[in-house]
């Protein structure tokens, strides 16, 4: 499963960053595909990006000022249209529709930056921590979603009513990796513009890369606002993980491989689960599996009694 997921992640990264000409000329793709978003964090200022990033798109729509003028006379319908015309309903609708079917699966299977984190974690270091680090840090991504992606672009506005994509500007390491490091190499004119912001963002990226070697997916677990949006839908999505307690032999293998540090036996529909399915793959009794239309339904079987195999490696 892990190898198959790696192949899917690689294909997804190539597909969403397939504008080869951009990597040669340093110019970004400006074709019609940029009308739509990918369901992953993928900077649209990357020379190879073919579509827009949903987190960037939400911020620029909010930051661009809405069509609602509170001082003008309005009927209820024109007010509603005004508010909606300034809200990123297209992106939110797209992300919600996708999450209704598969929850946070695009984090585990499609996200280029998620794949990058998986690859970096394979670098051998003297010590690693199982799972996703301190649990309290997992709530940070919700604060980032509400604060930096929604409230700051809405309310920190200039005299013309425009704002900035604060998450992209101050945090997003995917933008630094995919665009910030590449574009100054490809476009020498940009090198003169590098300053404190660039130093901050590169430092943050370096820090995260260091953390990636120790923890699994620190950005997904702690900081990603897209994961924060998708996460709560894990509980109700059409295709979701289900645990069959009658099959479980309590070997703990699933807990050892979970990149989010979850105990899938107790919390297989947690908001932190990135739906990588490694737990289901490693389970010797298939006690954890994806359920949904077209897939085998959960069956109540006799309690498992076999001794589980020894734990295979968890990535190192």
């Amino acid at each position, binding site marked *: 499963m892990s190898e198959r997921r790696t192949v899917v992640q690689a294909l997804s990264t190539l597909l969403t960053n397939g504008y080869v000409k951009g990597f040669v000329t340093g110019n970004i793709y400006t074709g019609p595909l940029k009308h739509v978003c990918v369901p992953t964090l993928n900077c649209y200022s990357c020379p190879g990006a073919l579509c827009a990033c949903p987190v960037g798109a939400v911020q620029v729509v909010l930051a661009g000022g809405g069509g609602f003028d509170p001082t003008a006379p309005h009927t209820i319908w024109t007010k509603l249209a005004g508010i909606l*015309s300034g809200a990123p309903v297209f992106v*939110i609708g797209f992300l919600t529709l996708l999450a209704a079917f598969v929850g946070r699966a695009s984090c585990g299977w499609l996200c280029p930056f998620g794949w990058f984190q998986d690859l970096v974690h394979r670098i051998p270091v003297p010590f690693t921590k199982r799972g996703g680090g301190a649990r309290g840090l997992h709530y940070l991504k919700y604060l980032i979603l509400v604060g930096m992606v929604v409230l700051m672009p809405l309310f920190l506005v200039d005299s013309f009513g425009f704002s900035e994509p604060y998450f992209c500007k101050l945090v997003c390491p995917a933008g630094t990796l995919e665009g910030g490091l590449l574009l100054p190499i490809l476009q020498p004119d940009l090198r003169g513009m590098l300053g404190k912001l*660039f130093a901050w963002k590169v430092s943050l990226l370096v820090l995260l890369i260091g953390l990636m070697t120790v923890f699994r997916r620190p950005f997904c677990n702690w900081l990603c606002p897209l994961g924060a949006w998708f996460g709560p839908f894990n509980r109700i999505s059409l295709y979701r993980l289900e645990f069959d307690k009658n099959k479980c032999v309590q070997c703990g293998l699933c807990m050892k491989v979970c990149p989010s540090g979850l105990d899938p036996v107790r919390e297989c529909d947690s908001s932190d689960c990135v739906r990588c399915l490694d737990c289901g793959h490693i389970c010797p009794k298939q006690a954890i599996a994806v359920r949904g239309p077209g897939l085998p339904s959960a069956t109540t079987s006799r309690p498992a009694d076999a001794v589980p195999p020894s734990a295979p490696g968890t990535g190192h």
Partner: protein
Amino acid sequence: MRPMSDRTAFRESRRGALRNHAWLAVAATGAVLLALGIALGEPAKIFEKATAICLQCIGIG
């Protein structure tokens, strides 16, 4: 493991049934918002922003 009482079993099954249908409400909401966004021309706004290099976004500007 202690067997579930009838009431607990009923609650569990009702919760399961709600969860089984909640995705439909969420999907419908998503589809409506998506259609509304298209009708309001949001893809054009996204296109306009996504076709210019956002120097701030990548830490340059």
